[in-house]
């Protein structure tokens, strides 16, 4: 008889645990996640990349290394 004190709440906990395992699909969150991934997969295709380098590197300055030591 004493065991009932433990067994009953235990049964309750087990049952409620079973209910939480069976949670349903979070559609709104999934949509947001999908959008994020789609953004990343398709990014950079809306407009053809105009890859003009802003401020092309200045032409190399002639380097004089004529320091001769005799």
């Amino acid at each position, binding site marked *: 008889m004493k*065991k009932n004190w*433990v*067994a009953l*709440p*235990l049964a309750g*906990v*087990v049952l*409620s*645990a079973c209910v*939480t*395992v069976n*949670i349903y*699909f*979070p*559609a*709104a*969150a*999934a*949509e*947001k*996640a*999908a*959008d*994020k*991934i*789609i953004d*990343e*997969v*398709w*990014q950079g*295709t*809306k407009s053809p990349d105009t890859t003009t380098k802003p401020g092309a590197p200045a032409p190399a300055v002639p380097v004089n290394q004529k320091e001769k030591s005799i």
Partner: protein
Amino acid sequence: MNALIKFCVAWLVLFSVNVASAQVNIEINTPGVSALKQSMHDRHSQLAEFYGNGAVGLTSDGMIAVRDASAVPLAARQKVNGLVAAENQDRKALYAEIARANGHPEWEGDIRNTFAQRWIQRAQAGWWVQIGGSWKKK
């Protein structure tokens, strides 16, 4: 009796873990998802041309398919078929990986359906998408 109490405590811990994981959030920041995203992004630069000319379209089940092979020069058809097959393999893996990363492999179908809707909704004008079994141009 002692063992029973221990068992009870263990169940309580399990229960609270379940409650924590029931938070409505979809985890997509895993190495597997990142790798698939990167692979699909790299492939997209080659596929975009075929979406644009109607050779390839987005299907209603979250995949892509060759819609009009005649839009592709004979020499490039093999390449398009390869791209489509590789893309579909990645997509399938992506849906499964997201479901797995969230501890619910059984969500794969739901995730695939969600993606199918979003891919189609966000497709660029001029691309072909499959709606209700037939192809439509966006």
